[in-house]
């Protein structure tokens, strides 16, 4: 693999803009410095056309072989956004950048090509996105479920925010279940619930909990 010299974040974005033109929908650089000297670490965010995903990753591999971290995803309503998070130039003192490619899949066509032919280590992440978002990764070498158990209902995708997401009846509030009935009594009797003060209004009650 040809190795190009170390580039600055803006040079990487310029390379992508030159190669893909209008296919790059948005590109930005964020930076963050911590500690006393506030030496900056850089993140590069590139939103692009879905068809350009694989060429974009291939281009990054031509610059320097990247480390693939994970695919993150977000349900935006009509679309699902996938973020391919990689990093490039590892091994360089404070010279590594995170590079994130964002693509949007309309819910009418939730397919995305696999990148495992380029980076085989992406397989687990692709399998995870299939089961958690209900997308289809075309040509995936192994399409089985990864984390969800076999008896998990089909057609329910935990990270979706529409009707295919987790339904309220699937949620068990652990605090509401209480102590199992088939156990011996605890050595110390359980505390009785404190009666509610009449002064607390309905909307001032503590909020939170998974079912909300």
């Amino acid at each position, binding site marked *: 693999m040809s190795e190009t010299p170390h580039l600055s974040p803006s040079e990487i974005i310029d390379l992508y803009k030159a190669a893909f033109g209008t296919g790059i929908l948005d590109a930005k650089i964020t930076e963050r410095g911590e*500690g006393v000297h506030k030496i900056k670490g850089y993140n590069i965010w590139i939103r692009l056309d879905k068809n350009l995903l694989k060429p974009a990753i291939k281009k990054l591999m031509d610059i320097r072989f990247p*480390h693939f971290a994970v695919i993150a995803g977000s349900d935006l309503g009509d679309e699902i956004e996938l973020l391919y998070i990689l990093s490039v*130039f590892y091994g360089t003192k404070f010279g590594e950048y*995170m590079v994130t490619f964002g693509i949007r899949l309309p819910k009418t066509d939730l397919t995305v090509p696999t990148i495992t032919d380029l980076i085989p280590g992406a397989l687990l992440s692709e399998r995870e996105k299939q089961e958690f978002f209900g997308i289809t990764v075309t040509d995936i070498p192994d399409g089985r479920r990864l984390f969800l158990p076999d008896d998990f209902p089909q057609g329910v995708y935990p990270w979706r925010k529409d009707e295919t997401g987790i339904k309220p009846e699937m949620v068990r509030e652990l605090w509401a279940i209480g102590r199992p009935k088939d156990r011996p009594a605890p050595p110390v009797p359980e505390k009785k619930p404190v009666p509610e003060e009449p002064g607390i209004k309905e909307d001032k009650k503590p909020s939170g909990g998974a079912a*909300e």
Partner: protein
Amino acid sequence: MSGDTTKKSIPYTVPIGPVHPALKEPVMFTFQMDGEVVRSVDFAPGNTHRGIEWMGMRRNPVQIVHLTDRICGICGVVHSISFARAVEQIAEIEVPPRADYIRTIMHELERIQSHLLWAGVAAHELGFDSLFYLAWRVREQSMDLIENLTGNRVNYGIIQIGGVRRDISDDQRPLIEQGLSYYRGLLDQMKNVFLNDSTIRMRCRDHGVLTYRDAQLLCAIGPTARGSGVSMDVRHDYPYCAYGDLDVRPVLPPAEFGGPKGDVYDRIIVRLLEIAQSIDIIQQCLDNLPAGEILWEKKLPKLLFTLKKAQGEAIGRVEAPRGECMHYVRMDGNEAPATWKVKASSYSNLMSWIPMLRGEQLADIPIIVASIDPCMSCTDRVTIIRNGSADNLTKEELTRLSREKTRRLSRC
């Protein structure tokens, strides 16, 4: 395999797990065995998937910080720092330098205890139980130190968005110094027992090899990747917390031990040398600990109000004891984040098992599996299906196989 287990045919299918001899977390393995030799491996994680990201997307960031403490049973601080760093970037919160240094000290203390825990587990897998007890006894010092600094031994609860919740007082400094000198005095002894022991070398050298190229392609990270010679360490590559001010170099297997071969032995070397490195980093942090506040905002309602307004996305990443730990967070002006994705270090390292285990023997499985991940071992049972009849192997039997091999080798 053909699926027909009634015939006596190679390869045999050997399922191991989900509760496993070499891992704290349950993982189901299916081995295709040709006699004693592993032909191919398949694994199915997910038995401890608790839907933490789903829970997080229904809670506010301050609540999530305490949830992140509980993602891992060993790494009590790396997930919290990753998540806090992501949220701090979105809300443009400036962390006081003193808090960055305290985070770094906690981070490295955790690395010491995690690596020592792993060293003990590795010794136990090899049947070297006196070393296992020694390593875990030595580990107690770092656990006590962590307890003294945070109030807790496992779920530290020290990280808050915008800083840390507890300061290091002047009274605690001598305690840390004392702990560091304790480990400095022990390091040579630890290196001697682990690296100069001929049995350990025989069991670990050239076993579980992960080549440089495979480590890259399968996205391995942390000591697993460094053991294969991949120079990759977030602390060196990508400044965060106090690491921008420090001189941290990725620890690679030194040439005096035969250079990076990517085997189990190299991963032991890397972890042992990293303990020395962590001691050095903590010392540097103590010497240069800046004065000042430890929190960006003490008042929780004010912090929550700021977080509720925050919009944007960010990545927080740190070098956990097992490699890069990364959190992606997106906030859209609501109380709870719109998206939260956790990438723990083992998530990236699991795929490395496939090339590591291929061609190895059944008795080598525990140490190779444990070599990427410093988790406590607890097995339930192993089922070997031969000629249609299933024999149950207990944890003790699989460990016995591993130990017998050690004895066999040491007799040679």
